[in-house]
């Protein structure tokens, strides 16, 4: 007789979901993700609101990803109403997004995932067992937040990023502080990389799934998707390609690719394109169990990119600027970006009064659902015969490898 055992609430992930393990007698025969987070219906909430309000509301989809949601929504809105931002604003936004990337990755690695590799149950035990590592991680995390605070006005739900520009341009002194802080964590990042690379795999080797990433712009930005099979999908066709539909087991829409295997997105996907040669030897495989490694390398890349951006901003000389005046206009805009967890799409349509008449937001965790379920199935097969609790733990760890952000997924 088949029986469903549920992991009530997935822990150490953002949002509310569970894993259902299907048991046949003593054996676990199948598993899948169940996302029961309550939908806030953002796509409906946004309809009827003015274009200036969209990003402020949309960023509330998720706190961890609020900066990237904000920037993505702004880009979509601006392209719809025909606003071009200054180069300085562009650089500042990019910097804020990198700040978010640093914070999010540090949070995942040091606060949420690391306990899996040390066989403890969470951050509080980590503080006891590995206080140095945790503090190192928190130090890195803090820099990510500081970037978002200085550029965005606040670490979560940055309000200083506006349609057409920025509320108050940070002062050179503030950017210099950031520069110093970033420099001060470089060593910690390097040390963290060694630490993470020294951790033993806790999951069996699973198959490598196809993936896709945003490309065609500076890191994390772009106008198209490139898949592992080197296909290119331009922004305008991405929605169709992702082919979202509603499934009974999830409050998040699920992507159905034309191909039979689902694609996955995220740090590992971004990195798999080109693993830095110095680290290549550490990637025995690039299957999902290596995602922690991918994340820590990306963390380093984000720190470097942030340093580069600050240098550019300071070299150019910071200029006071007022946001470009935007006039309400009819139009449609799509933005494609890489959020910490992968491909993020915001798309809006406005009427001639600048009022939103359609909104579509596709988030990385929603896209990843298929891949997660696929991996879970595979894990169950690979661990066939193992003890229920072992499988249950492994299943949780596996899902955590995707660093799901369930608020994003459901929104």
């Amino acid at each position: 007789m088949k029986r469903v055992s549920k992991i009530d609430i997935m822990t150490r992930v953002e949002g509310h979901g569970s894993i259902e393990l299907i048991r046949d007698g003593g054996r676990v025969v199948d598993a899948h993700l169940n996302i029961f987070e309550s939908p806030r219906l953002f796509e409906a909430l946004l309809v009827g609101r003015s274009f200036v309000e969209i990003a402020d509301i949309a960023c509330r989809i998720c706190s961890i990803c609020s900066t990237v949601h904000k920037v993505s929504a702004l880009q979509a809105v601006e392209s719809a109403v025909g606003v071009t931002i200054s180069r300085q604003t562009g650089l500042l936004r990019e910097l804020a997004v990198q700040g978010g990337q640093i914070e999010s990755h540090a949070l995942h690695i040091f606060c949420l995932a690391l306990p899996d590799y040390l066989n403890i149950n969470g951050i509080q035990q980590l503080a006891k067992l590995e206080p140095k590592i945790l503090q190192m991680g928190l130090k890195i995390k803090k820099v990510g937040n500081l970037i978002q605070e200085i550029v965005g006005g606040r670490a979560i739900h940055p309000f200083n990023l506006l349609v057409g520009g920025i509320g108050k341009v940070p002062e050179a002194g503030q950017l210099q502080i950031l520069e110093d802080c970033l420099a001060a964590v470089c060593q910690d990042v390097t040390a963290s990389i060694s630490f993470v690379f020294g951790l033993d795999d806790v999951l069996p080797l699973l198959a490598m799934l196809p993936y896709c990433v945003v490309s065609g712009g500076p890191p994390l930005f772009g106008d198209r998707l490139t898949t592992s099979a080197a296909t290119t999908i331009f922004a305008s066709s991405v929605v169709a390609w992702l082919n979202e539909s509603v499934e009974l087991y999830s409050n998040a829409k699920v992507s159905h690719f034309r191909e039979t295997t689902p694609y996955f997105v995220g740090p590992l996907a971004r990195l798999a394109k080109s693993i830095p040669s110095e680290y290549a030897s550490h990637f025995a495989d690039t299957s999902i169990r290596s995602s922690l490694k991918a994340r820590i390398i990306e963390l380093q890349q984000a720190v470097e990119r942030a340093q580069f951006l600050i240098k550019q901003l300071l070299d150019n000389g910071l200029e006071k600027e007022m946001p470009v005046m935007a006039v309400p206009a009819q139009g449609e805009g799509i933005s494609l970006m890489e959020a910490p967890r992968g491909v993020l799409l915001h798309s809006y349509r406005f009427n001639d009064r600048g009022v939103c008449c359609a909104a579509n937001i596709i988030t990385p965790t929603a896209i990843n659902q298929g891949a997660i379920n696929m991996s879970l199935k595979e894990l169950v097969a690979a661990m066939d015969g193992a003890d229920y609790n072992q499988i249950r733990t492994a299943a949780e760890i596996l899902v955590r490898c995707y660093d799901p952000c369930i608020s994003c997924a459901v929104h």
Partner: protein
Amino acid sequence: MRRLRLAIAGLTACSGCQLSLLNCEDELPELFEKFEFHFFPMACSPALLTGQYDAALVEGCLSMPHENELLQELRRRSVYLIALGTCAICGGVAALRNGEERELLRQQVYGQHLVAGETFDPMPLQNVVQVDAAVSGCPPEKQELLRMLAGLVRGVLPVNIDYPVCTECRMKENLCLLMERNALCLGPVILGGCGARCPSLAVPCEGCRGALAEANLAEALEIYAQKGFDRQIVLERLRRFSPEWQQ
């Protein structure tokens, strides 16, 4: 001193209030010493409620039956139940279109498919349980969170704020965006405590801390009208975070 036992839970929300806590990077190690984060699914496994809690900090609004069950359970087990953030206090962004047919909104997103179980209009915690204290903000200010936690150690709940955003804005000697830039700044009717975060960067207050209890809305609307803001637009703005603004 005894370590206080805490439960930290998120309902319908963006996890920002919980993240604000995890963003106290400098203080976290000390917090871990002073408190037992016994139930904290976002950061600790497993998620099991057992025994009594000195305080339950709850983020988010209520929009599903199982959330209500969790909330009642937390209430039963906790000395203090503290609402964390604007969603928990007023409903927050999720309640933006309360008053409209929820099923129609749902269909806008999901079509005819019957996913998303049973949900209802997002509501603040106080609709169903007694709330002992609240820390407002979307997200809450770190300092307020830390002060609230420190107060708990001492057996004190935070003092309610009864002044608007403008008060701190003036203390900071900012340019008044409402008067000098004719901007739709909600400062006069929104609960202060954020240090006028947004106006300090020349960004009008969007009202993320919710309505000030004794706000003079009639006069504020009059002033906004004089500045040329359509009443409907102002009210919509006001309802971004707290749906109970009605007039």
